[in-house]
């Protein structure tokens, strides 16, 4: 059983047991356009919720990706080094950025679920 949560900055985190997988939303990848590079954190790196964790770049923009929760990186998606277009093709699947520990599950409670995020994005587009 896994649950996906979203931040207002368009990151998602899918928690499975005590590990969360982090990426950017389908909406975010559309806004960015063709992703050309993703700078990923080293495994072992610890973040507080809201810390800058990664950078995703298109041709004309670079956006910081913030740690959605507090925890430590356990794995980065090395496939993105060779093929950053995976973020465009499957932002909420194969285009994940990194996996991290979940230090405080309570942090997830303040985040949006899929439906709430859909409503949030719809409002942004108005």
């Amino acid at each position, binding site marked *: 059983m896994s649950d996906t949560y979203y931040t207002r900055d368009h990151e998602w985190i899918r928690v499975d047991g005590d590990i969360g997988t982090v990426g950017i939303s389908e909406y975010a990848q559309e806004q960015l356009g063709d992703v050309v*590079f993703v*700078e990923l954190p080293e495994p072992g790196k610890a973040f507080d919720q809201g810390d800058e964790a990664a950078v995703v*770049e*298109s*041709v*004309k*923009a*670079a956006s910081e990706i913030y740690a959605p929760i507090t925890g430590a990186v356990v794995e980065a998606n090395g496939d993105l080094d060779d093929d950053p277009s995976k973020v465009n093709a499957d932002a909420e699947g194969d285009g994940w950025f990194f996996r991290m520990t979940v230090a405080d599950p309570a942090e997830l409670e303040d985040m949006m679920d899929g439906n709430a995020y859909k409503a949030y994005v719809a409002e942004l587009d108005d």
Partner: protein
Amino acid sequence: MRYLPLTDRDRRDMLAAIGVAGIDDLFRDVPPAVRLDGPVDLPPHQGEMAVERAFAAWAGQNLSPGRAPSFLGAGAYRHHIPAIADHLIQRGEFLTAYTPYQPEVSQGTLQYLFEFQTQVALITGMEVANASMYDGATATSEAVLMAGRVTRRNRVVLSAGLHPHYREVARTNLGYLGMETVAPEPDDDGGEADLAALVDDATACVVVQNPDFFGRLHDLSALAAACQAAGALLVCAVTEVVSLGAVKAPGDMGADIVAAEGQSLGNGTGFGGPHVGLLAVRQKHLRQMPGRLVGETADADGRRGYVLTLSTREQHIRREKATSNICTNSGLCALAFNIHLTLLGERGFRHLAALNHATAAGLADRLAAVDGVTVLNDTFFNEFTVRLAKPAGAVVEALADRGILGGVPVSRLYPDRPDLADLMLVAATETVTEDDADRLCAALKEVLA
């Protein structure tokens, strides 16, 4: 006024079209108290003849190295620039184009910069080069900041053999980012102790110059190994790029970053600028590199073309998180470099370097025979250091009185080092003739007697 195409009638018609009574209405957002009523206190406009006359008079007050035997180096070198190079850089399509932000109408600029990047990578023995920096001194400083980002360390070792201006610029820039500089002073003959001893596990980089400021050549391999063992980068500065046609390339001796002054190819000494900075790195450090990069791609019809790329490193996108604040660089000087090196080609570049070296070697032997002159270098490319029997500053002035630009007194750059006051740097490029060498030797005999 010859540069202004609007007539008074145009101006009247345009004001009417805009719907205002006079030009002052367009400046109405300027607080009245600070609007000037009339021209500032400077001379009025002048025709070409008058302006040209003024500059001819200023030029006449200088001793042109083209009219005097000249042996000046120390980071700027007089070489012969083929006539076609200066002609081509004055093509309006090159001279008066902006930065190639619209690639469909900038393929000329983009292609020559791509060729330039390739040339710089090849001659320095590195993998990737950018599309230029301001000059050698600022390129070296950028290399050091880059090494700080790559290693996430903040201690920097600057060799005593690094050009004093390069040292000063690096020291000036580093302080603001909390970086610590270790910069040993040269010995009284311009030498220094082994730098490997200064490398520790907090060191971001060691910066050396080859040939060094005093003209000596160094095998960097051992120092490169020491840096690598400590996790530091080796930055090699080159002030005379023609040397790369004769001397082992820094990249082939293990340098991680090469920062160079490219003036010697295609660009005159120009009283110090504009020159062109070169920066070449290893592919793995590419994303920490400052400055513009041109990359190959394809157009909508599948034809090969070039664009500015990896721009997310740069200030116009990344703002305060950019790898550098540089925007305008040395585009046209890079073109001059590119054209000159293309003209030379592999064979000409090697020949030019060999000719420089042989000319300098011949001069060193002749100077060594002059009483009161000691050549200090065992090794050099086209510049070496001599110790004179009198203070070098006064000797150089006395030579200038005889119409000879004899060398750079080390005291010009190290005025606080009396033990270096007798040292003079002497450069001999392909422009030095036998007659020039005769005159220098004869004059030195007189001056030192």
